[in-house]
């Protein structure tokens, strides 16, 4: 259903035109803050804004109510311009309780709008949050536009007469908060009303309560004297086309399904649930009518092994996980390299090491996916740069895996996976097909050679059931050509060299590295993965200030694009911002003997644009 947004309310108050806004909802996990954020995102996207989001939630499903550990937040950045980040300092914040206020208020801009649920600021909650005095009464919030809204009471009154328990009534508070935010930014209630209708189809009383709470929140904004003005963000000037909002995990799942269709394959996913990758499993499980088979395995190892079995049997095979699961899959990935079968391995990175920060983002698995296998075991590695980009990355990874008969590692991260942005809907027929040919039988009566190679060193993908091509694959070293077991020393050297060269050959088809900005200058910002948006925004800002700065963003981490060394040498300095302690820097220094400068951050959060700008300025003349 396509929706053209129309503002439905006649405004009686001042309306201020702004270019962009960053709004954050924060409250207890369980308060529905992720839902509130998602709804504001969708409705802003439907209003034609460019959007970027940053959900930030604790690992505990329901931490004790009111505690600092249990605070869940969702940030939405919407704009009338092209944006690449979920924003840094927050223009408007809705805090549902003292703990949420305490953990989030530092990110609110001076003079920013702060809406609090004043009902939640009781003695117990203040104590739980560690407030010695009530911040609503002392002068600590003086620098903000503070609005105290008795949300609990107002929500209860709005749903009065619906025969709800108090707990049920109070659970509608997030819809009240949404309604208020929607008023403040002139958003239509329609998309959220439609959401309520489909989500609570079987619970008419709850649906009605949420509708009333949402409307009450909007009306409160409109009628109360406290708010004197609201804001409007014009439609963004995005490239023409039809759009929808996508999270990274959803975009990746859809990209992979698309890759399957482009290669006329059914997709098999072997997976074991792990944050933040599970949503790919959930999403793919819904599309059995697309020929998608999902197998929730007993563990990470079985997940990757089942996928290798599926690849051997001729399917498009996939396994999805996060860092700790990738560690478990290491041995099987080595086997996949040895078998030379096409396989996609998705690593949605999170904070490590070990269990680390399971719901927070990090980019620290790069060296693991490059080297975390025994022996000389190279594998192509591709990384997505934004939520919508995950779609294209899924397709490109499969194109390479199928062409080269190799496992390919896809890197995403928690920030991309859960964050969302507009995705320009593609037309399937306009996508380039992925041709795959399985040998159909012996040629000219010659015995079939399972490890005979083509010009790019790929071997044939002969599948069980084909007469005349029977062969055995396995983890023991193979004789070149036949694939029979071989302990011959020279053959082993030859096969190690061949497998490595095959991965290097990927560079022949992935195209040259592009640079945003001049081809030479004082500074190149080199990035990969999730920091794309922050780096791009930072470099654009520096360029507008007249600095000779350019930006190169890597999609392939292994192999590097063929022209990368030349690009790096055209700049006086190279800055590599990474959400790790310098892993790409290590690879670049090793490969090109270039003294890169690292900007490292491992705090479970993405880069702020200002962090990159500040660092870059220290390197500029």
């Amino acid at each position: 259903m396509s929706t053209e947004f129309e503002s439905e309310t006649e405004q009686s108050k001042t309306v201020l035109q702004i270019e962009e806004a960053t709004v954050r909802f924060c409250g207890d996990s369980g308060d529905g803050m992720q839902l509130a954020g998602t709804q504001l995102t969708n409705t802003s996207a439907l209003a034609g804004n460019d959007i970027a989001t940053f959900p930030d939630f604790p690992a505990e499903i329901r931490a004790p109510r009111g505690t600092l550990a249990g605070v869940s937040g969702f940030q939405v950045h919407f704009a009338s311009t092209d944006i690449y980040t979920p924003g840094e300092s927050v223009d408007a914040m809705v805090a549902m309780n003292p703990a949420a206020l305490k953990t989030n208020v530092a990110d609110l801009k001076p003079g920013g709008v702060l809406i609090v649920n004043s009902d939640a600021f009781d003695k117990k909650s203040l104590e739980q949050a560690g407030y010695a005095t009530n911040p609503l009464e002392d002068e600590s919030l003086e620098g903000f536009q503070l609005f105290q809204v008795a949300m609990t009471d107002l929500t209860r009154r709005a749903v009065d007469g619906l025969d709800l328990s108090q707990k049920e009534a109070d659970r509608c508070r997030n819809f009240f908060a949404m309604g208020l935010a929607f008023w403040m930014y002139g958003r239509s209630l329609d998309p959220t009303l439609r959401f309520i209708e489909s989500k609570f189809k079987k619970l008419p009383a709850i649906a009605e309560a949420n509708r009333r709470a949402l409307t009450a929140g909007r009306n409160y904004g409109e009628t109360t004297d406290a708010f004197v003005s609201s804001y409007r963000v014009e439609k963004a000037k995005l490239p023409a086309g039809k759009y929808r909002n996508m999270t990274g995990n959803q975009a990746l799942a859809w990209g992979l399904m698309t890759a399957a269709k482009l290669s006329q394959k059914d997709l098999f996913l072997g997976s074991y649930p792990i944050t933040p990758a599970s949503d790919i499993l959930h999403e793919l499980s819904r599309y059995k009518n697309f020929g998608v088979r999902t197998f929730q395995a007993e563990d990470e190892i079985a997940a990757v092994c089942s996928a290798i079995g599926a690849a051997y049997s001729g399917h498009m095979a996939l396994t999805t996980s996060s860092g700790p699961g990738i560690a478990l899959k290491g041995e099987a990935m080595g086997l996949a390299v040895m078998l030379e079968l096409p396989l996609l391995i998705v690593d949605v990175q999170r904070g490590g090491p070990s269990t680390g920060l399971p719901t927070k983002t990090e980019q620290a698995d790069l060296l693991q996916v490059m080297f975390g296998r025994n022996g000389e075991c190279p594998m192509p590695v591709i990384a997505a740069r934004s939520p919508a980009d995950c779609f294209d990355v899924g397709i490109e990874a499969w194109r390479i895996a199928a062409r080269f008969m190799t496992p390919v590692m896809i890197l995403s991260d928690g920030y991309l996976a859960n964050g969302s942005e507009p995705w320009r809907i593609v037309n399937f027929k306009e996508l380039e097909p992925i041709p795959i040919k399985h040998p159909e039988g012996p040629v000219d009566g010659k015995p079939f050679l399972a490890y005979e190679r083509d010009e790019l060193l790929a071997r044939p993908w002969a599948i069980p059931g084909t007469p005349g091509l029977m062969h055995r694959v396995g983890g023991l070293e193979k004789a070149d050509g036949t694939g029979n077991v071989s302990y011959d020393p020279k053959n082993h050297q030859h096969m190690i060299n061949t497998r490595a060269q095959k991965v290097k050959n990927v560079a022949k088809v992935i195209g040259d590295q592009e640079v945003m900005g001049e081809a030479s200058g004082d500074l190149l910002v080199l990035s990969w993965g999730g920091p794309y948006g922050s780096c791009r925004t930072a470099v654009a800002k520096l360029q507008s200030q007249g600095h000779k700065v350019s930006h190169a963003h890597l999609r392939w981490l292994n192999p590097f694009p063929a022209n990368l060394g030349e690009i790096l040498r055209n700049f006086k300095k190279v800055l590599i911002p990474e959400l790790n302690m310098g892993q790409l820097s290590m690879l670049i220094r090793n490969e090109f003997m270039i003294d890169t400068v690292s900007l490292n951050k491992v705090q479970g959060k993405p880069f702020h644009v200002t962090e990159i700008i500040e660092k870059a300025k220290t390197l500029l003349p």
Partner: protein
Amino acid sequence: MASVELPVLKPGDYGSDQDVRWCPGCGDYSILAQMKKVMATLGWPREKTVFVSGIGCSSRFPYYMNTYGMHSIHGRAPAFATGIKSCRPDLNVFVITGDGDALSIGGNHFMHVVRRNVNLNIILFNNRIYGLTKGQYSPTSELGKVTKSTPMGAIDNPMNPLSLAIGCEATFVARSIDVHIKHLADTLKRAAEHPGVSFVEVYQNCNVFNDGAYKYATDKALKADNIIEIEHGKPLIFGQNREKGIRLNGMQPEVVELGKGITEDDLLFHDETSPQPTLAYLLSRMRYPEFPEPIGVLRCVDAPRYDDLLNEQVAQARAEKGEGDLDKLFNSGDTWTVE
């Protein structure tokens, strides 16, 4: 359904061109020979058969069969086989494994592939020792077993593979012995023909590291008293002169002498199709030297198979929703247009 046009295959047609490199005298040779013999009788096209193995002496097996095959990683063969069978129900998939491979490192996968009832044939070569890593004790080694890694004797209680499989509600469970070749061939054939997971434990001699582990079951003079060939619908009788039987005393099996007032009708009758796994489990608990150990089919029941159910769901989804249309999916839900 055998087609008249299919070439008649001989056991030799199933041998690959690779040299078999097991130790001379290894029990694996016998199992390989019987497998080839059984294959030739099944009427399956060779190219439709896949052997999947893990790591260990037994797991070299796929290299020696002229079919499709995969020598995978330690303990995980059931997972690879699950992926193959889930995508390709048309293939006949065998898992070849050993006691260390299946029960130690692969214990988790074994348990899950069995309870899912994936339509696979799992053949476990049980020599009660680690052969390929040169003689450490295995999960089936007896208490007190002295090996390189247990100089004072093993102190972990051995695992009973049949009990484990039955505990996971395996739909086909059997045992045979490497040198009991006719019995072995019959058992492998029945396993291959069973729809659903079939699990066969084969007592297999490692003449280098654990020679004679099953002497009680293979020695001509001893075996009649120490093993009992069970058959569906037949009473449990054994002994040199078939003079002994197994009777139930309450919930306990006991060895009784036939004659002296005890007739065949007093004995326990085997029912491999019993829907409850109780009887099969009871039989699996009969261990040497207290009891004769059963060989033959302990359990054979029908149950839904994971791979069928998975593919039925795909077919059902396609029937209900139609073949997936990506353009329709992309354009579903809330969208907006930028001019």
